[in-house]
């Protein structure tokens, strides 16, 4: 135990981000009003951190007294965060300039959010998960409200903040209950205790089933669950007069805690019953920030989700798996069906991100090695294609937040054939058309679901992705086969073009050589 130099070396990507964030703050305070410098420094920080993460892929180690787990898993996610972070920065430059909001704070916030994400992905302890989520979320609340003179941006920040803090409450209560029943917050310790705790509970099925999935799906609200299912049984458990720590009661508390942790995380990934915030927040936030939230934040939440499902709970028990499968199916159905009726492209992408959260969750519900690998691949593929789509939306967006309707994209192919082709590529990939990255992502997670005897989940997934093809391809049809006045506002920033090119390259690359 104790502090060692190797702890810093193992977490080099994290510390690079920390250092860059602090340097940018200092630069900003010393020479205020030079956002170009901050832009370059933060970009360099992200690239350096990403390279260090590539270098650290091979070493498997724990650091800081078992609090952090370093290795291929955490470094893979660190690469994804650095990639999305640097692309977000590239996209944001011309967008912020156009809106007269080109300030250093944007880059500082992106850096700090990325720090929280790296913490979440390398966590080996519930405390680190909590700290990482909060570091990420608090930065993102501010990013959502970055245009503080715009009503839409303010509104989106407030909604994100209130619902995000509400979900944090559930997550924390869950952490507290898990801690109380397992006696530790460390994943490895909980992992050893979990089988015993799961077996000795008095009413295992009824708690999870009556309390969580069914009523959630029916009511569609997280709240009713909590009121109906959870606290009552806690109170009852207390009433029965058993001292906690006795096997049966501890098991119940453990399951309740896990349920609450899953609710909190499902909120962060915007999975079905807990998705209410996503469309409004994605719609109102500045587009580069939306892209960052939809990709990196979701990737980070899945990084934490996979750690909790595989490292903490271990061979996910039947009840937890079923709970996740129900959430996954609900997200896929709800996200894809509602996306059809959206006319605003940012809201459409928001619902599509809910559906993609469902696809990724089915990999976690499968609870096998293929599922884990599939989720990791999916996260990377999803990040590239969605960020690319948001980059193009940011080019086309005008000052008054108009021109976000899909019909406004009519005639884009005639005026800007390259941009239209890139957007078509991202849409094809999101729809899951081979040989692009999105197809293989879906293939891997559905394969994992079939191997775990959850064929029904894979069938739901395939059917809903057929539905999704409709609204993704509608964008392509509008761009190519309708006459219209689509126009790019002002000059297209060089950095944005670079970002779109990188995304497009990765979508093809990940698809052709999976």
């Amino acid at each position, binding site marked *: 135990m104790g502090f060692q130099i190797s702890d810093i070396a193992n977490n080099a990507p994290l510390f690079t981000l920390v250092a860059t964030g602090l340097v940018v703050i200092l630069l900003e305070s010393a020479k205020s009003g030079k956002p170009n410098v901050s832009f370059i420094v933060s970009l360099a920080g992200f690239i350096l951190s990403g390279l260090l993460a590539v270098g650290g892929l091979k070493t498997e180690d724990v650091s800081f007294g078992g609090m952090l787990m370093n290795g291929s898993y955490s470094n893979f996610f660190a690469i994804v965060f650095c990639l999305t972070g640097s692309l977000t920065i590239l996209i944001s430059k011309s967008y912020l300039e156009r809106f007269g909001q080109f300030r250093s704070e944007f880059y500082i916030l992106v850096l700090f959010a990325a720090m929280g994400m790296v913490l979440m992905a390398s966590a080996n302890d519930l405390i680190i998960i909590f700290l990482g989520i909060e570091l990420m979320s608090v930065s993102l609340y501010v990013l959502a409200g970055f245009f503080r003179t715009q009503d839409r941006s303010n509104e989106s920040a*407030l909604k994100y903040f209130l619902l995000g803090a509400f979900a944090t409450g559930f997550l924390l209560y869950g952490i507290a*209950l898990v801690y109380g029943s397992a*006696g530790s917050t460390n994943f490895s310790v909980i992992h050893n205790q979990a089988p015993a705790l799961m077996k000795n509970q008095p009413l295992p099925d009824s708690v999870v089933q009556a309390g969580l999935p069914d009523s959630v799906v029916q009511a569609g609200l997280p709240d009713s669950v909590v009121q109906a299912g959870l*606290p009552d049984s806690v109170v009852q*458990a*207390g009433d029965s007069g058993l*001292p*906690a*720590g006795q096997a049966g009661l501890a098991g119940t508390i453990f399951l309740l805690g896990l349920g609450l942790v899953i609710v909190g995380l499902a909120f962060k990934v915007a999975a079905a019953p807990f998705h209410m915030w996503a469309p409004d927040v994605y719609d109102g936030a500045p587009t580069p920030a939306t892209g960052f939230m939809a990709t990196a934040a979701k990737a980070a939440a899945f990084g934490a989700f996979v750690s909790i499902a595989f490292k903490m709970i271990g061979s996910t028990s039947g009840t937890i798996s079923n709970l996740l499968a129900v959430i996954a199916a609900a997200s896929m159905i709800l996200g894809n069906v509602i996306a059809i009726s959206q006319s605003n492209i940012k809201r459409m992408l928001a619902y599509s991100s809910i559906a993609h959260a469902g696809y990724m969750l089915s990999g976690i519900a499968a609870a096998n090695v293929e599922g884990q690998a599939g989720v990791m691949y999916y996260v990377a593929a999803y990040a590239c294609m969605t960020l690319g789509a948001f980059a193009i939306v940011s080019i086309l967006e005008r000052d008054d937040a108009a021109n976000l309707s899909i019909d406004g994209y009519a005639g884009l192919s005639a005026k800007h054939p390259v941009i239209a082709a890139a957007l078509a590529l991202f849409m094809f990939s999101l729809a899951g058309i081979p040989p692009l990255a999105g197809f293989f992502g879906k293939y891997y997670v559905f394969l994992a679901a079939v191997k775990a005897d959850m064929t029904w989940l894979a069938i739901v997934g395939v059917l809903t992705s057929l539905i999704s093809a409709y609204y993704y391809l509608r964008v392509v049809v509008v761009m190519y086969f309708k006459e219209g006045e689509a126009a790019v506002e002002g000059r297209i920033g060089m950095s944005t073009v670079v970002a779109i090119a990188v995304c497009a390259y990765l979508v093809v690359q990940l698809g052709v050589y999976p």
Partner: protein
Amino acid sequence: MIPLSHYLIVSATMFVIGSVGVLSRRNAIIVFLSIELMLNSVNLTLMSFSSFLGDVTGQMLAFFVMTVAAAEAAVGLAIIIALFRRKQTVNLDEINIMKW
């Protein structure tokens, strides 16, 4: 000595009061206060488990929760003020440009 279950009942009740407050109140600041109540009920749970188990991790986590809640309060109140400057209201029913 007061048994653990009493502390757990109190904190669970606080948690429920907080979440009902979030759902039923329409004033952004009251909603925010209800969230703080939920976080503090978690702190109570953590402290009681920590003392019951004789393990300091829970107390450490409670400190982190307090710190994070303070940071969250700073950001949250700033967001509410920015919104109030534009709209002269903190009523959640009137903050509805985008369909909820």
